[in-house]
């Protein structure tokens, strides 16, 4: 499998979009690009599985390396392990759903799709890169499209939100940059190469400096408490597809970075700060959940609940056990699909009712059975119903966290577990206030989902259910990668 293809397809799509004149064809082009990418992602999945099944025990498969800035020892180095494959699949799913959901966008469709595809380009590159420099390059590529998406097509306090998002994310990436430079100059080979770096002994004091920089830097992307405040404003102001991409893809960049760069390359640093990570993420999980309870705007609700859910990702990483890390990755995939779907549904509802206030809705089940059914499914996924992906992820994280026998980890885990109750409270509140109850007079002639919305929802639900019903394939995909990461932590927990 030629990994460059995965980067080239969105790039070519984006450029073609820019050159396109006919506004009607733009969306078809974007859809084609997204579909090709989805197909490629599946091809990647299957070839990867075949390769692994045929006994290829290398950590990163399908590696490709081209010289790029050789005087800085930078190379365009691509490669995938199971974790990256999972993330790429997630991205492909979210992208195609995002394109479908924004089918009827009327303001500057060309630019809109261009930015969407550009964002996905950044995400694909990020997940594929094995060189920290190009990883950083792709990370930053993915920021500005978000700014523009929110600023141009957003609603509400969009400019404030867009600014906040862009600045906080750039702040995060600034920290990442400094951390990367620290790594770069402290290794004798002067390399940004992830594979090489992971085999080098980086001095412990450097690790202790670089880890917080990198972790917090990536953590900002993943809504690490207390750097999460871009999340509510950003998500709620973004256009539907923007929110989907933001929560579904962009937040995962951070999680992946925390895992792949911070934890993997800097094990000593990770050990040093693991407890702090756990404390912060536990706070995020509970605090996010409680803050969600108070929200009245559906998008704000989902944004805060994302803070809570993504807390599990960092929580899993902080636990530093194979199971917990596997769980963290599953949670990334699961949350990506789920939250994208959630935002899609909210978008669909908003488009029809022109409000996102839960208190102003009610009884929508009567007029839009499809949309509300999707809302039910995604809500249930969010509260961790077995059979849907959220459960698998949370349970894996809990099981992994529980492998630590000491009181601190136990206590944190129990606190984190408590969030499932709080989650149930706010999810049910949201569902019951929107979908159930007596319907308002003014809503009684609203229409149900159109084909594109249905297709988008079905694609994402397929992903959610595929993980929820048969988690073993995802688990088998991810856990070898998690295992290799854990080998760096020589002392077993």
């Amino acid at each position, binding site marked *: 499998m030629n990994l460059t293809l995965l980067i080239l397809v969105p790039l070519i799509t984006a450029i073609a979009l820019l050159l396109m004149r006919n506004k009607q064809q733009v969306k078809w082009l974007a859809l084609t690009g997204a579909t090709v990418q989805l197909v490629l992602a599946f091809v990647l999945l299957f070839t990867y599985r075949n390769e692994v099944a045929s006994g290829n025990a290398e950590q990163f498969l399908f590696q490709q390396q081209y010289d790029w800035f050789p005087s800085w020892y930078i190379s365009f180095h691509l490669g995938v392990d199971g974790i990256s494959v999972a993330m790429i699949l997630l991205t492909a799913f979210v992208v195609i759903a995002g394109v479908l959901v924004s089918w009827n966008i009327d303001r500057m469709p060309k630019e809109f799709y261009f930015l969407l595809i550009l964002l996905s380009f950044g995400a694909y590159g990020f997940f594929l890169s094995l060189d920290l420099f190009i990883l950083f390059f792709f990370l930053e590529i993915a920021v500005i499209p978000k700014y523009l998406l929110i600023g141009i097509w957003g609603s509400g306090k969009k400019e404030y939100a867009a600014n906040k998002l862009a600045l*906080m994310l750039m702040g995060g990436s600034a920290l990442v940059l400094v951390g990367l430079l620290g790594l770069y100059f402290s290794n004798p080979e002067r390399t940004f190469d992830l594979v090489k770096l992971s085999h080098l002994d980086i001095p412990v004091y450097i690790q202790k400096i670089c880890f917080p920089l990198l972790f917090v830097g990536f953590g900002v992307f993943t809504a690490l408490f207390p750097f999460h405040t871009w999340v509510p404003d950003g998500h709620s102001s973004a256009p539907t597809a923007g929110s989907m991409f933001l929560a579904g893809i962009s937040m995962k960049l951070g999680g992946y970075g925390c895992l792949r760069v911070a934890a993997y390359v800097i094990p000593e640093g990770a050990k040093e700060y693991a407890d702090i990570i756990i404390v912060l993420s536990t706070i995020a999980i509970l605090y996010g959940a409680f803050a969600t309870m108070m929200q009245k705007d559906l998008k704000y609700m989902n944004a805060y609940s994302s803070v809570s859910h993504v807390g599990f990702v960092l929580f899993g990483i902080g636990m530093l056990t194979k199971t917990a890390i596997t769980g963290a990755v599953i949670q990334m995939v699961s949350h990506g699909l789920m939250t994208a779907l959630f935002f899609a549904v909210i978008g669909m509802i908003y488009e029809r009712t022109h409000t996102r206030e839960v208190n102003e809705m009610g009884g929508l089940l009567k007029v839009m059975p499809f949309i509300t059914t999707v809302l039910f499914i995604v809500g249930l996924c969010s509260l961790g119903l*077995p059979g849907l992906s959220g459960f698998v992820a949370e349970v894996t994280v809990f*099981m992994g966290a529980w492998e630590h026998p000491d009181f601190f980890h136990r206590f944190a885990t129990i606190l984190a577990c408590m969030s499932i109750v709080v989650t149930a*409270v706010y999810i*049910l509140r949201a569902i019951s206030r929107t979908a159930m109850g007596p319907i308002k007079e003014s809503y009684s002639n609203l229409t149900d989902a159109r084909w594109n919305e249905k297709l988008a929802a079905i694609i994402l639900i397929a992903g959610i259910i595929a993980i929820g019903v048969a988690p073993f394939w995802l*688990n088998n995909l991810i856990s070898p990668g998690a295992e290799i990461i854990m080998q760096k932590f020589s002392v077993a927990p």
Partner: protein
Amino acid sequence: MLNATTIALIPLLPLAGFLVLGLFGRKYFKNSSGIIATILLLAATILAIYTAYGYFFEYGKVNGVYEKFIPLKYTWLQFSEGVSIDMGIMLDPITCMMLVVITFVSLMVHIYSLTYMKGEERFATYYSFLGLFTFSMLALVISSNVFQIYIFWELVGVSSFLLIGFYYDKPSAVAACKKAFIVTRFADLGFLIGILILSFYSGTLDFSALIQRLTTPGSAELSAALSSSFMGISALTWAMVLVFIGAAGKSAMFPLQIWLPDAMEGPTPVSALIHAATMVVAGVFLVARLFPVFALSAPDALRLVAYVGAISALLAAIIACTQTDIKRVLAFSTISQIGYMMFALGVSKYGGEGGLGYTASMFHLFTHAMFKALLFLGAGSVIHFIHSNEMKDMGGLRKYLPVTHITFLIACLAIAGIPPFAGFFSKEEILSAAYQNNMIIYWIALFTSGLTAFYMFRLYFGIFWNKAPSLKERAGGEAHAHGEGGFAMMLPLILLATGAAAAGFIPFGNFVSSDGKGSESAFHLQFSIAPVLFGLTGIFIAMWLYKKENNKPDIIAASMNGLYKSAWNKFYFDEMYLFVTKKILFNLVAKPAAWIDKNVVDGLVNATGNTTMFISKKIKGIQSGKVQQYAAYFLVAAIAVAVLFIYWWK
């Protein structure tokens, strides 16, 4: 030999029903969905009976002991070495019994609903939800893995949620389904943590391995689980208590009983299936499933089970005496009866004579499923006829609903423990188990059985006797044209009544016992006198008070003002919970969290930006536009840098 496919088909058939009806029901099977679901379930029932028969009479017994039989185990999610969630099938006596009960009651409800739910807009959805529930419940009982049980535990919870909220445009139904889900979810938190502890110490999630490891005296796992303790209580006891919390939540035990009465907002057949016969006894099933661990390694936890069960039985019975909504009376009666099952388990020992409680509990579960489903379906007929749940709207209905009347009476007699109906046998066993082990619980149970008879017959007389029916003003003439609802509604009543009348004669002890060896249930005539007397007393008091319309009940109620009022208000549990959730969690945790987020955390971010802008404004004076000032700054800066580097910063 029993093969895995056959057994797997039992839950999978309802699942197929759920998928087909859920996806395409609205469009393609609008009217035929009921029939499709019923046929699928009929097939499942036949398979279940076949399986149970095969297990009990042909293959199950190995050397005189009913062994656990695991025809299927598939690794679903591997966590670490040895610890994985498996999807599997495990047959043992209680599983087989549950399979039969669930499929049978579910079939009855399916048939009953054909008429009862006719004309509903979401008829197909209703059946698909029923399918989902039946699937989850069946899969729950055949679970071979403690996490598998948790998974389906949650799924039955959600199907219950969906079905309670079936009338989604009724605010009370919406509130009830939320409440049911959240309360059980809270309990499930305990279950989950319990599982985590169990898995950590036993190193497995598999039931048979887990039970084996944690009950073998001296095994490494057991001693580790016993030796590590928290707050003076061993980890294993904690785990079992937490698991029991989960069970108590699902089974609406004290103090988590608050959701069940409200759950009666769902369609009545659903109440019969989920909130009387099957789902609510899942808690009992769970305790029974882990009974060896409870009994052998965590006796303290088991004692808790006993007391919680007894308290629930008593409290619910008292409350039931005051309620006027017939479904709520039945709901409290359910809680009370499940309390019986719980404390029966709680007083039981593992194996031999002492294991009577276990057998009794399962027996009562079995008989209770019959008569309680019957009661609910009967109540459903009444409600279907009279379009009201309130006792005050009823009375004298025996002439209009003869079949319902008779079957309802049978069920009442059964639940009151009057021989020879089914309830008598099971209750008698429970009482004798309690008598052997714990006198306090025995007296509570005895008193409760009298109360049970009283409130059941209060209900019976209130519905079918008492004042003359006032139908005209109720709903107009045409509403009663459908009478009792025809064959589809009557058939389940009759079948269940048969079960309620006759199920007691099954030699249950032979099949179900704590250690699988089987035991002869000894029948002591003298022992039965007390419970039957209590039951009869209750019946007569009810007859005296309620057979004819009079004001005696009001007088008595008035004379017991405080007790009556607090019982009528369900001992203010709802209010307490509301206080804790609304006032404490909502106002003291959630609100501050949201406030802090908006003002402190976000405030800091904004403050950073604002400070920058502020400084930027403040320093604009440097750029004064005066070229001479520029030169002055230039010179001062040059000298300052020079001084700095000459004297301080070398």
